[in-house]
């Protein structure tokens, strides 16, 4: 279910209730807060997660990132799938 390669392009990922992306002023970094978990997020993850609003499909998120960062679509897609697969397994993203 959470094998990154098998996630469909049409899923609309979103952060479930109880999972927040937060800019932490004290530490000056972006964190993903979940029950009993605090995950540090690198800048790429932040850009991906900001787009997981339950409206955009995975393909649209990849298109958007590729356009904005003028990067190769296939590479972005690999990153997006890897992150979402990992977070879905931890139940921190709903697909």
């Amino acid at each position, binding site marked *: 279910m959470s094998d990154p390669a098998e996630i469909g392009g049409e899923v609309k990922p979103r952060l479930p209730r109880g999972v*927040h992306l937060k800019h932490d002023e004290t530490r000056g970094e972006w964190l993903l807060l979940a029950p009993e978990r605090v995950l540090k997020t690198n800048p790429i993850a932040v850009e991906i997660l900001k787009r997981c609003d339950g409206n955009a499909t995975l393909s649209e998120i990849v298109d958007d990132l590729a356009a904005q960062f003028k990067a190769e679509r296939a590479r972005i897609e690999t990153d997006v799938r890897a992150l979402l697969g990992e977070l879905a397994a931890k139940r921190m993203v709903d697909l």
Partner: protein
Amino acid sequence: MNALETTPTPISAPVGILAELTHRCPLGCPYCSNPVELDSRAGELDTETWKRVFSEAAAAGILHAHLSGGEPASRRDLVEIVAHCKKVGLYTNLITSGIGLTQERMRELADAGLDHVQLSIQDAMAESADRIAGYKGAFARKIDVARWVNEVGIPLTVNAVIHRANIARAGRMVEFAVELGARRVEIAHTQYYAWALVNRKVLMPSHAQVEKAVAEVEGLRETYAGKIVIDHVIPDYYAKYPKACMGGWGKRTMNVTPHGKVLPCHAAETIPGLEFWTVREHSLIDIWMNSPAFNAFRGTEWMLEPCRSCPRKTIDFGGCRCQALALTGDARNADPICHLSPHHDKVAEIAATFDDVDANVSASDYIYRTLKTRVPAE
């Protein structure tokens, strides 16, 4: 200020606050981690003081507010407190037995911005669960509460403390958590301090029971991958190294008692000679940085051998101070769970006493947790 101050390693910001809003609780779990001397209702912090504490927590860099007890739902101002935490940007986690919540109140909590509910269960079987809790009907009520949590869309964690009377159903409790709609389940073997220490004789399972239960739960990880996250706290007594207690003393969390005392861990009061500060007299950040209790076991300077020269000292910080005290008589010693501790044989000795216990525990064997009766000396 203090002439004897050594150059300290910088103190990082706290991450979590465990707020024991009250020690009142309708249940009487014999393994309760609250102190044996419970805080009375009369001295509890009022709403305004708790709000100030949570504002100070957010300003100090705290991310998670764990609203706990006793039973936090016993506080009439719970919704107001949650709303305040939300307002100051804290992630709110309600740690509850479910008793005292209603469907209506759950909706109010959801509207107030509650992020997560952690519901305790005592067993996966009604009769046994109610006997352990010392409360008839608790089991059935928890099933309702889980449903209400799901209805309002708040993610649910189910928490089960494992001991002799329910260890045969450790795996079943994972399944039960799935049935209750939980996204996460904590299977935590009892840690023997506070009430659990008082009841150790009737709580501690045999090594064989533990091994079977641990294997069973580990085996379910694969079955439920992507469906439920299993957090498994395996028992100390058979481990080689101790746990990094609280992620290190004064490193991550603060524990505030109903009367406002701030502790580095909830059992810290068992250590004699520590000076705790209260939120009535100090701000939270002042307590974090400067209170003697928080500084007592920070870093590695206080350590004795074998920890002092051990490469793991920054990994497990020498384990649990309270356990070191309880079993060796000196809180600075290595946690005797560690096989390198010269006191390690005491752990093995205690564990061995339980090698042929059976699982039948009757209610009359427990000393239930209560605000009223005093516990007989051991």
